[in-house]
Structures are given as C-alpha cells and as structure tokens.
C-alpha cells in the first residue's frame, strides 16, 4: 500500500460506483449489517451465506470472484478499502483491490514493513487494529503505521501451497467506535481461506493452460502427422501437420471427424489396423501404406499405431511420417536398376554380335590374303584378332557381372577339393609352361553356387600366376576354420609382385588395373570375385600383413553355408 497522509477523513465511505455487487446483494448486506452484535452467530451465518451466494467455492473466473469478495468485505466490515496483496520477498504488491478512489492500483508496490500487512505476515494469523479517536498517542500495539492515513485495519494471511503468499485486508480512514469483533475476524479468516483457494485454482488453471499451450505448440511443430482416435475410426484430435495433409487449416476442425469420410479409399484398412492394435494392446510400427486423403495431396506414409487408455477409454495414438519422396526415389531407383539390367543384356547381345562378326571378318581376310602375306600384315592381323578377343571377353564379363546382380543364388553342397582339381586340370598347361609350384590344403564341402565359386577360385589362382615374375612362381591355397566357428577362411598366397597398400581396396573395383605388369585380362576379375563372395554372405580382402614380396588374398564364407561333417 502506498500511503497518503494528506488524505482528508471526510471522504464518502462506501459510495464507490465500481462495486461488483448488484442491488439485491447490496440490500441483503444492509440487512446483515443491521443484525446487532448481540446476535453475532446469526450475523456470521448470514454473512457466510451471502459469501457462498456471491462467490462459488470452485470458480474458474477467480479474478471476478476475488473482487466480489473484496466488495462484500468492504460492506460487512464497514471499510472503504479492500486489498489482496502478494507479500513475498519483503515487498507488498497489490494483486486485487476494491477502493473508492484511484489512489491504489493493481501492481502498485511498497516495502512490506511500511504496511499493516507486515504484522499479519509475522503473526501468521488474522489481526485487527484501530486508532481510537484522533489521539494517536493513546494507541498501544497498533499495527497501523501512523503515516498510512488509516484508522482501522483488518487483515488475514493468504496461505497458498502451505506458505504465506500474501494478505487479504480491509482498511478504513473513518474512525470506528469499537474495534472489530471476534466474529468479524472469523469471517475474515474464512474469506481469506476462500481467496487463497481461488488463487491456488487460478494458478493451477494458468499452469494447465500453459502446459496445454506448450503441448499444442510441440505437437503442431513436429514434422510428424499425429492423430488421437477412438475405436470407431473417429478422429478425436489431430496436430497441425495432420490437418494440413488432409486439406484443413485448423486442427480443431477435425475434432470428431469420421475417417471413413476423409479417407474413402483407405479408411477400412486403417480401421482394421486400429482394431488389431486396440484388441492386442500391442503397437504396430512402420506400416508403409498409401496416403490418399479426400482433399489432401496423395502420397506414401510410414505409420506407428500405439494403444492408449485415457480415462478408461480405448484410444489410439497414430504417428505418421511422409515418405513420399523416399518412395518416389525408390521407384526411380528400381526403374534405373531395371534399365541398367536391360542395358547389360542389350550390351551382351548387341555389342557381342559386331565383335563376333569383326573377328570372323579378320579370319576371312587372313584366309583370302593367304599364306604369302608379309610379316607386318600377319602381325597386324594377329594384333587385331587379339584385341577383338579381349574386347569380347570384357563385354562378356560385364554381362556376367550384371547378371550376377539380378539373379538369385542357387546353392547346393559343393566339394571344393573336386572344384579345385578341375581348375588345376584346366590350368596345368600354363602351370607347366611357367613352372608353377602349387600346393593346397584339404578343403571343406560348402553349400554354395558351385559354378560361381569355381570362377572365384580360378580367377584368384590365375591372378596369383599372372601377377608373378618370380623364377619359380609359388602358389598356396590355405584353409582354416576360425576359432569361433563362424566362418571358413580361405587364403591364396603367392610370391608375386604384391599389391601396394593404397591399391588393396581399389583392386576390387571393376576395370581397375593396379599393376605395372603387362598382363592379359578384362580388369573385372576381382570385382566379380567380390560380388560372388558377397552374394554368399562372405567377405574378401587383400591381407595387409602378407609381408614383402607376394600377395595373400583372403576370403571367408559363413559357417552356416557349409556342411560341417564333410570337411
């Protein structure tokens, strides 16, 4: 309270026009006031009755209720001023007031110790105090600061959440004949309890509304589309993104909307899924399905459906993300893959045909020229044939690589010892030419595609032979089962030129030739090997720890692909 000692005492008492009480209430209050002090119980009863009539105990319009209480108090206690003030941290701040003038306003602050409310806060109970006549010197123990201009004061603490939050007080500048009665103090305490309850409710309300607002903002700003539905396919709530996706600006417009009307194509499916989730009590996640709202943009979404129980009612939380872009990219990728495979088969046929013809033409030409050709012509024809053959091999390899991508692997038990024996028979002439020394350990029987695995082994052994300029090329095929019995490990070792560190991954790229050695080949061998091994669920790599001089290529096949008792 701010204080105005200059104020005169002859101001009107209860004539302010701003009272919130209507004429009937005023009349009732007059009759209560007429009850004599001797009839104190009746007075309190009538006053309480009026308090109840004017301010309901649970009232969501707390502000209005509190002002009404102040008006009632002013009348009953015969005071011109009524205040609800917050008194925390030593500051007196007016939160509500009912006054005959504009001397006090909501929000006005002063030091708590300069106000009569300080004594109420200290005492933690209702206090009444008056100044007898104008002779302030006769007052003993008055709580009213002399310069406040007040001559009567009645205040009670407001306990909110078990702590003194502030005070409810009434004050007058009129001299009273007698002090406030015990009944008046009791009534004040009851009023204070009610105001405190209303303040608490108002706080809870504003917290609730803040939380609701915050939740709404969160829900409206997440990229997901969110719905809460019942078991009848009815939408109870939707967030902004969900509403937008269905052609609505305002999510509130979807309250109690029927999914059957909004998604004519998909509603039945949605409802089936809803009921599955609600009946099983288990969420359904990652449902990928078309999204075809009547008024929104069509596409694809990925949806999670989670069962909820709200107030004993079955509810469903539906969270969907738009995956239309991803789906379109996927479709495009599938088309690209299909056309790539088509390209590979076209390449196989259409590129091989002219090469075959060119090769035949060279043969015909050689025949027609006959035996008396010059050395240079003979050499040119040889080179031409050779180049065309290389080209045909490359085209065929590309085709095989592409075909490998698209085919499903057919597997059967394969005895790798037999496979190796066949390969060695084929390679025997070149081994004999080069003086290759080959040794192999006993190999297992594995479940695999025998033809492809044979190609891998042949490729690796041929490479070990080709990229080798040792006097006596040595090649070894080693085999071991790893300690944890998860994979079978094969290693092909040679004493050849080796593979530089930087090239150990690059050699597996198609057409990547990393050697300076002039060697025949399509440049696709190791890429092919890697695809085959990967298709079997295995891995292949160049061992970085092979040491100087030579290469160790390791490939592993999962143990599950093998027949263990045949090894």
């Amino acid at each position: 309270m701010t204080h105005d000692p200059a104020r005169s005492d002859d101001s009107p008492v209860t004539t302010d026009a701003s009272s919130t009480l209507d004429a009937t209430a005023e009349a009732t209050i007059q009759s209560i006031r007429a009850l004599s002090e001797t009839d104190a119980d009746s007075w309190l009863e009538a006053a309480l009755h009026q308090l109840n009539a004017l301010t309901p105990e649970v009232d969501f319009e707390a502000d209005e209720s509190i002002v009404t209480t102040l008006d009632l108090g002013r009348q009953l206690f015969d005071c011109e001023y009524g205040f609800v003030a917050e008194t925390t941290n030593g500051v007196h701040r007016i939160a509500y007031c009912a006054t005959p003038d504009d001397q006090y306003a909501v929000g006005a602050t002063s030091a708590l110790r300069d106000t009569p409310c300080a004594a109420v806060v200290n005492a933690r109970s209702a206090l009444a105090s008056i100044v007898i006549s104008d002779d302030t010197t006769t007052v003993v123990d008055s709580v009213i600061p002399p310069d406040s201009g007040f001559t009567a004061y009645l205040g009670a603490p407001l306990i909110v959440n078990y702590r003194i939050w502030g005070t409810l007080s009434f004050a007058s500048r009129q001299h009273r004949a007698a002090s406030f009665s015990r009944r008046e103090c009791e009534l004040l305490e009851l009023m204070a309890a009610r105001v405190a309850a209303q303040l608490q409710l108002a706080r809870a309300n504003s917290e609730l509304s803040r939380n609701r607002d915050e939740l709404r903002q969160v829900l409206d700003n997440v990229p997901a589309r969110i719905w809460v539905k019942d078991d009848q396919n009815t939408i109870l709530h939707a967030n902004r993104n969900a509403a937008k996706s269905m052609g609505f600006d305002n999510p509130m417009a979807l309250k109690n909307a029927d999914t059957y009307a909004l998604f004519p194509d998909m509603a039945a499916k949605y409802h089936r899924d809803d009921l599955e989730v609600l009946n099983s009590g288990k969420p359904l996640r990652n449902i990928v399905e078309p999204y075809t709202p009547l008024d929104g943009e069509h596409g694809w979404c990925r949806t999670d459906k989670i069962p909820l129980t709200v107030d004993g009612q079955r509810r469903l939380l539906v969270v969907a993300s738009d995956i239309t872009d991803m789906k379109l990219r996927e479709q495009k990728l599938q088309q690209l893959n299909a056309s790539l495979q088509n390209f590979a088969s076209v390449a196989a046929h259409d590129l091989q045909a002219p090469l075959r013809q060119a090769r035949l033409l060279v043969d015909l030409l050689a025949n027609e020229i006959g035996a008396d050709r010059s050395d240079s012509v003979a050499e040119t024809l040889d080179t031409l044939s050779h180049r065309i053959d290389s080209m045909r091999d490359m085209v065929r390899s590309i085709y095989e690589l592409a075909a490998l991508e698209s085919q499903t692997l057919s597997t059967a038990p394969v005895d790798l010892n037999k496979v190796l024996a066949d390969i060695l028979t084929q390679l025997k002439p070149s081994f004999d030419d080069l003086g290759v020394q080959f040794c192999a350990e006993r190999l297992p029987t594995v479940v695999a595609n025998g033809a492809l695995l044979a190609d891998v082994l042949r490729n690796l052994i041929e490479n070990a032979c080709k990229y080798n300029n040792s006097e006596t090329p040595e090649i070894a095929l080693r085999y071991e089962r790893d300690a944890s019995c998860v994979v079978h490990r094969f290693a092909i070792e040679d004493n050849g030129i080796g593979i530089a560190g930087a090239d150990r991954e690059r050699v597996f790229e198609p057409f990547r030739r990393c050697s300076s050695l002039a060697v025949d080949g399509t440049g696709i061998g190791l890429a092919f090997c890697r695809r085959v091994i990967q298709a079997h669920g295995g891995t292949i790599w160049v061992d970085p720890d092979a040491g100087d001089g030579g290469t160790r290529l390791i490939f592993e096949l999962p143990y599950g692909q093998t027949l263990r008792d045949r090894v």
Partner: protein
Amino acid sequence: MSTRVLLIEDDLLDQQFVLRAMARSSGVVDIKVAENGAVSLEKLRREPLPSVIVRDLSLPRMDGHEFLLALTSD
C-alpha cells in the same frame, strides 16, 4: 539332289558368313534365306520342307523361340 537349307537370320553380314561357309561344303546346297520367323513360316507353308533350318534367336517380329513354337504347332 541338293540339300535344302532354310537360313533365318536378319543380319546381312551374318547371312553372308553362313552362305560363304555353306558354299565351301562339298555337297550341293539349296539355301533359302528368311529375315524373320514370320517370313520363314510363310516359306515353309508354300515350299518343300528343308532338311536343315539354321536360325538366329534374336529376330524382329517373330524371334527364334516363337518361330519354333509356331512350327511345332503347325
């Protein structure tokens, strides 16, 4: 009596290769050429049956497989 041969091949160069190879054979060969399966079916219906049919697989209009199906069902 010459051996009748029907060659079904759309590529002119490949036709030439086969004709050249046939020309080198010791026997007398009567070669008819058709550029696709449909034309050769027509020929087969009108003319005496050949002893040998040499056919490409990838052909316009009616490919080698379709030709074989049509031939066996005729």
